[in-house]
């Protein structure tokens, strides 16, 4: 039998507490690396170019003492999505696609170009999930919140309020476990009244239908919880003017070098991507 448990598959927001050098870097440095790996991960057009960020993330993960299996775990829940993308690619053909047909099934044909696009999509998705997984495994919720504030501080002169944005990020992260918990409670309440969750029966449409009665109460509960939290924040004297911060992130040794390395890595991946064209 299978129980109802939603928390287990929430890999985003699972911070792994450790004293490693990677963990101790400033949040703004981690955001820089996140950006410098994600941009080539999305933008590279070769297999190697899309896979290199993944490789670097796994190396950084090893330096942060995080097992590759932990980082790759986030890929599992989106496997069906990838299969769906692959099916779509093969079902519809690209206009002017004159690459060779690999195999045909009735009116549908899989061409070399389609196969290449599917492979690229898979590599990209795995890369991105791993990079994000590495970021959340090495950056606590508080750090991701303060990182936003630090990164956006220069924009404060343009009238943007970095503290407000940072708080929005912090509260959003705080709500991940809250919503997962509410969802689980409500699913359990309805499953014991005969709704089909985790009983492993019925087709995909029946399964999707079973989730419909969840939306209303989960949305209502999310709004109620948000209202309660807003009230609690106000009661604790929430203010935007002249707010100070407890957390401070002193510069680590070699931090400047680590930041330059991020930019160099990004540039190098794009250079390699261009050089190996097609590979």
């Amino acid at each position, binding site marked *: *039998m*299978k*129980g*109802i*448990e939603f*928390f*287990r598959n929430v890999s985003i927001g*699972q911070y*792994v*507490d450790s004293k490693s050098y990677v963990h101790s870097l400033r949040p703004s440095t981690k955001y820089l690396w996140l950006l410098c790996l994600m941009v080539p991960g999305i933008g590279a057009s070769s297999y190697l170019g899309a896979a290199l960020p993944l490789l670097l993330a796994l190396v950084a993960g090893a330096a942060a003492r995080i097992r590759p299996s*932990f980082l790759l775990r986030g890929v599992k829940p989106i496997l069906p999505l990838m299969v769906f993308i692959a099916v779509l690619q093969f079902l519809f053909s690209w206009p002017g696609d004159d690459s060779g047909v690999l195999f045909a099934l009735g009116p549908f044909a899989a061409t070399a170009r389609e196969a290449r696009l599917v492979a690229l999509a898979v590599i990209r998705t795995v890369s991105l999930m791993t990079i994000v997984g590495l970021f959340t495994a090495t950056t*606590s*919720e*508080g750090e991701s919140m303060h990182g936003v504030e630090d990164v956006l501080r220069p924009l404060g002169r343009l009238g943007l309020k970095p503290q407000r944005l940072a708080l929005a990020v*912090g509260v959003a*992260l*705080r709500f991940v*476990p*809250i919503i997962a918990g509410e969802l689980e*409670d*409500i699913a*359990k*309440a*309805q*499953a*014991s*009244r*005969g*709704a*089909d969750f*985790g*009983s*492993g*029966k019925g087709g995909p449409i029946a399964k999707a239908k079973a989730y419909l*009665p*969840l939306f*209303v*109460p989960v949305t*209502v*509960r999310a709004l109620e*919880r948000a209202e*309660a*939290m807003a*009230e*609690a*924040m*106000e*009661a*604790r*004297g*929430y*203010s935007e*003017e*002249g*707010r*100070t*911060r*407890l*957390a*401070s992130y002193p510069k680590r040794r070699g931090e400047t070098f680590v930041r330059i390395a991020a930019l160099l890595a990004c540039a190098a991946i794009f250079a390699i991507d261009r050089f190996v064209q097609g590979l």
Partner: protein
Amino acid sequence: MHLIELEEVSYLYPGAASPALSRISLAVDEGEYVAVVGANGSGKSSLLRLLDGLRTPTEGEVRVASVSTSREEGRRAALREVGLVFQFPADQIVSSSVEEDVAFGPECLGLPREEIRRRVDSALAAVGLEAAKGRPSHFLSAGQQQRLAVAGVLATSPRCVAFDEATAMLDPAARRSVLGLMDALVASGVAVVHVTQDMSEAARARRVLVLDSGRLVFDGSPAELFASGSPRVGALAAIGLPDWGTLAAMLGLEMLPLESPDGLAARIAAAYPAPRAGPGPRGDSVRPARVGPRPREPGADGRGSPAGALAFELRGASHSYLAGTANEVRSLSGIDLAIPAGKLVAFVGRTGSGKSTALQLLDGLVAPTSGKVASLGVDLGGRSVDLKKVRTSAPLAVQRPESALFETYAADDVAFGPRNLGLSGKALVARVSSSMEEAGLGYEVFRDRRTRSLSGGERRRLALAGVLAMGGEALLLDEPTSSLDPATRRQVMDLVGRKAKEGVTVVVATHSMDEAAAADFVAVFSGGSLAALGNPEEVFYDLYDPAWEIGRPFAVEVAIALEDRGFHLGSRPLDLRGLAAAVGASRRGAPPETAAGRPSAGGAEDAGRLR
């Protein structure tokens, strides 16, 4: 000068027909300890929000430190001087780490970093959470979360801390610890305003305010409130008296504002000079007769029940949440438990001791990580097990089941379950109406009421009606009476008792030992293991271990204190009525009529109101 003053204050929620509060005048001084009591919807929470500056009165004036909250600077001052702790622990935690959460208030005040650090450390030390400093806040227990909320308030150095039913969601031990924090605050000169539904908590304060439908009907000391014959106690009907008051009234003794079981036992022993004839018949002493191995299977020894069929069986069942991840938490380890059919069984234990997980295992909502679970004769480990059938024959009402209501109209929501069972037409209507009637919601009156317009107590009963409508052979209820006022609590427990009498196997998780004492069997969970199992008499008299941190029914505490004074009761009462009967019987020197008169759980409170 008063710290807080209310002058002719009324408050009307936007769009509401009648005011939540009308013409309230009162003052709270520095360092005072004030309790506010009243039934659900009497205006207690609105009052706190006015004191705190979260809301401003529609009429009249609230002044905090002499400044009116109708002015913005007065409102800010009120928010700063009066800290507020809410009922639901998790809702008031704004940060993902303990330390960051406490820092939120001081950060908003714009204090320098060193000062924030100092305040965070001292606030965490004051509530005893230093060790949890760097932990993610959502991994704390409910009791720890509530202490964290208090720390977050303390860090802003308020002159008054207001608690809005802050103990209602906590287990007895966590409750005691939060009450202890209140005492410590008062001792350090900070005023405390405590809103509660529990009269025994209110009696700890030096002053009690009673609200009734938005009006202040009493303002005075607990002693004055409990003084017999006071015409104002009529407003107390919905809340009832504290246990010691009820018992004193039953025995014709003077009611004291605050009294320990031991103190009351001393007065009873003095007032009822019983014949000291040694232990009663059959040597039935209330002193624990230490038994050998703790019984694991009620009925196995022939005492509890005729060796009938088992409704549920756990064999070496263990369960871990987040199994296989870095945050794996073991919630149950190696539970052996057999629940006979047609009995009322109470699961008790601290929050996090495994009660809820055990209920969900029985219902097939969570899968055991190891061990066996059999539910109504079905082995849940089987590969082709029909989980839907198991879940619907033993439906579970989760904690606060009203959260899961989703239909617009009341009757539609109740119909969700029966529809899933394939009922329709007349059979469906019959099932829905009978379950609503059972839950005390008249079908004709409530069927077309909007779910969201119902009161908290009505929504709880509607959710329970939805579970009753499954018509299962068993009912699993997870804290069905939590955060209800005493009147609604009684209605729900009466319903539970009725179902058990009809032959339905009922398993109830509860923090109320009075409710547990009314069950056929009590299973005590402690740290994920089954610490004891037996009938209430065995559990509370023979097997009881303070390390469980669950407390005992007040009547049991008094009975044991009486025995310690050489006052032999001749029986082992479990509730106040039984205790009063036993005291009366031993005075007459006659054996009591019943061994342990066990009327309904609400019996004691009923008697209190009958005075």
